[in-house]
């Protein structure tokens, strides 16, 4: 289907089901139950899952295939966001032109940074990209204030021209982002018994873009271009002496992954029309590296899983504060309760980074292929068990006629 082989088609269908049913899957607990705080099915977070999924898919095209570790990818995300917000300010609140512009501008930006950075490989390449991203961050924060609005961040105002739209909505407020009239913030609640599921236009738009981005990445992985990128990771000397120039290949991969980042940045602004310099900071670049490695670099689905996992931790674990913990351990005697709260507390709430760090260490040490490798191992274990059981049954079947 769609020019994919059977295995890839199945993978795409799984992602299709996961993204379309996300409001159900991520809301397994009734709204009034004590576990409701583990529900992640609210539009804001689901949008972030999809957006960072796109970001990580793009990053994986560069890092997973060519092995070039960029530490500055957040710069393209930030550039994408700024471009989109400028489009909202100048043109109209329709998100389509905004997103197209973010992809183009991020692509051009990536072309320049990639052209310079790719003169080196290995750690030097990483340092160069990091330097560029930090430079962009510093510029956005200070010198480029007329364009980026400095530390306040770029926001919409009532005095923006919006030549194809209107400066202000009918009620005098700032208009909201939309796709040909479909407001991104509009949502529809569905109550089923004690559960409430929210379907948001913004999320579904992000999910569809994620699906397209994922589909494109499968095509790239399976194409001759993808094979060349893997060849670059494997042995650049041989590639050189096989009459192929590795430079344009790596540059193309860099630009494509920069465009994915720009797309993610544009979507971010489309969901919430503001852009700040902190989106370009090195911590944001590091986060996408974590996502990709946690999920499984070089695999198709890994980066999406990694992005989902980190964003879930960031938003759900961090909400668990001391009083919530006391609620959990309330059934214990007082002294014991305080003791358990004291032990668990550093790992949740503001300390969620600690849990993430430990998890990351465990994955890197025991599952170098990331969560995908974990899934494969579990799958293999089940298959072995299934085969053994099947074998025993066959034995039994063989013995029966003799009885």
């Amino acid at each position: 289907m769609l020019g994919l082989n059977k295995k890839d088609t199945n993978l795409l269908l799984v992602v299709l089901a996961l993204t379309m049913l996300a409001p159900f899957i991520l809301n397994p607990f009734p709204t009034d139950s004590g576990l409701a705080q583990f529900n992640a099915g609210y539009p804001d977070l689901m949008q972030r899952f999809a957006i960072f999924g796109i970001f990580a898919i793009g990053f994986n095209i560069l890092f997973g295939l060519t092995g070039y570790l960029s530490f500055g990818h957040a710069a393209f995300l930030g550039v994408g966001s700024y471009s989109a917000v400028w489009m909202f300010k100048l043109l109209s609140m329709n998100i389509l032109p905004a997103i197209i512009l973010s992809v183009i501008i991020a692509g051009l930006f990536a072309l320049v940074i990639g052209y310079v950075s790719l003169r080196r490989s290995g750690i030097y390449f990483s340092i160069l990209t990091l330097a560029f991203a930090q430079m962009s961050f510093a510029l956005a924060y200070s010198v480029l204030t007329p364009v980026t609005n400095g530390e306040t961040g770029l926001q919409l105002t009532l005095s923006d021209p919006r030549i194809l739209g209107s400066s202000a909505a009918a009620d005098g407020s700032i208009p909201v982002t939309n796709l040909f009239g479909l407001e991104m913030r509009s949502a529809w609640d569905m109550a089923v018994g004690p559960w409430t599921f929210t379907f948001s236009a913004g999320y579904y738009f992000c999910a569809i873009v994620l699906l397209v981005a994922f589909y494109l990445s499968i095509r790239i992985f399976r194409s001759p271009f993808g094979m060349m990128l893997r060849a670059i990771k494997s042995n650049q000397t041989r590639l050189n002496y096989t009459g192929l120039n590795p430079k344009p290949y790596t540059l193309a991969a860099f630009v494509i992954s920069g465009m994915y980042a720009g797309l993610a940045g544009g979507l971010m602004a489309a969901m919430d029309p503001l852009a700040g310099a902190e989106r370009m900071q090195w911590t944001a670049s590091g986060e996408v590296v974590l996502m990709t490695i946690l999920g499984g670099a070089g695999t198709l689905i890994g980066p999406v899983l990694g992005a989902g996992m980190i964003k879930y931790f960031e938003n759900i674990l961090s909400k668990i504060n001391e009083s919530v913990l006391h609620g959990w351990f309330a059934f214990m005697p007082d002294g014991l309760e305080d003791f358990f709260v004291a032990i668990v507390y550093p790992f949740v709430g503001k300390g969620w980074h600690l849990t993430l760090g430990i998890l990351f260490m465990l994955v890197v040490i025991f599952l170098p292929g990331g969560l995908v490798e974990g899934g494969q191992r579990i799958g293999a274990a089940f298959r072995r068990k299934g085969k053994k059981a099947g074998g025993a049954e066959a034995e039994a079947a063989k013995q029966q006629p003799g009885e």
Partner: protein
Amino acid sequence: MGILEVKGVNKRFGGLQALGDVNLSVEENTVHAIIGPNGAGKSTLLNCLVGKLIPDSGSVSFAGQSVLGRTPHEINQMGISRVFQTPEIFGDLTVYENTMIPCFARRDGTFKLNAIGSVGSQTDIRDQAMAMLEDVNMADKADVHAASLSRGDKRRLEMAMCLAQEPKMLLLDEPTAGMARADTNNTIDLLREIKEKRDITIAIIEHDMHVVFSLAERITVLAQGTPLVEDTPENIKGHPKVQEAYLGGHG
């Protein structure tokens, strides 16, 4: 005029004159060996031929075109394929993919952004690569990861990759270094087979006299960066200058 012409090439590394006034002419469709003791400048000469080093003076031309100042991939596209001392292959890719890459290089040149169509739909490339693998008796290993091949098979694969480009000239850098005698003999047989099946020029840099005298039609002896003699294997064997270079004058 030979297919490869080296004229008056000098290369100096600091105080060391690695190559001094090297002249060499390799005739088309012959096997030409370059031999010499350790430190004679064999590898330096080879690196000047493939674009890894640029000589200080002199000229190197291949099929009438100068190769100086060109990058390795450009020189490869001119028709020189290089086989390395330790096999350089794409270890993370399968044997089949390894063989497809040079087929792509031959068809599409140094760069082509072919990012949407799948590898599976490139039937011409797949057929070429498979034919090449059958030619070197490796078709049964097509789906094996190249890194898990034996040393001998890696060498065989590397040669298959070079030949898949249908080069005018195959350049071998000590192809049997560090090999057991049986593997060395296999490599010699493989090279003989390659030579018999097609019109190709082979230049071979080698230390092992057994290999050289089994294959070469012309031999150039290099010592201390300059060619001593160039002749047929029969004449080289008994040449006093060669024995002097190799055995220190008491041959």
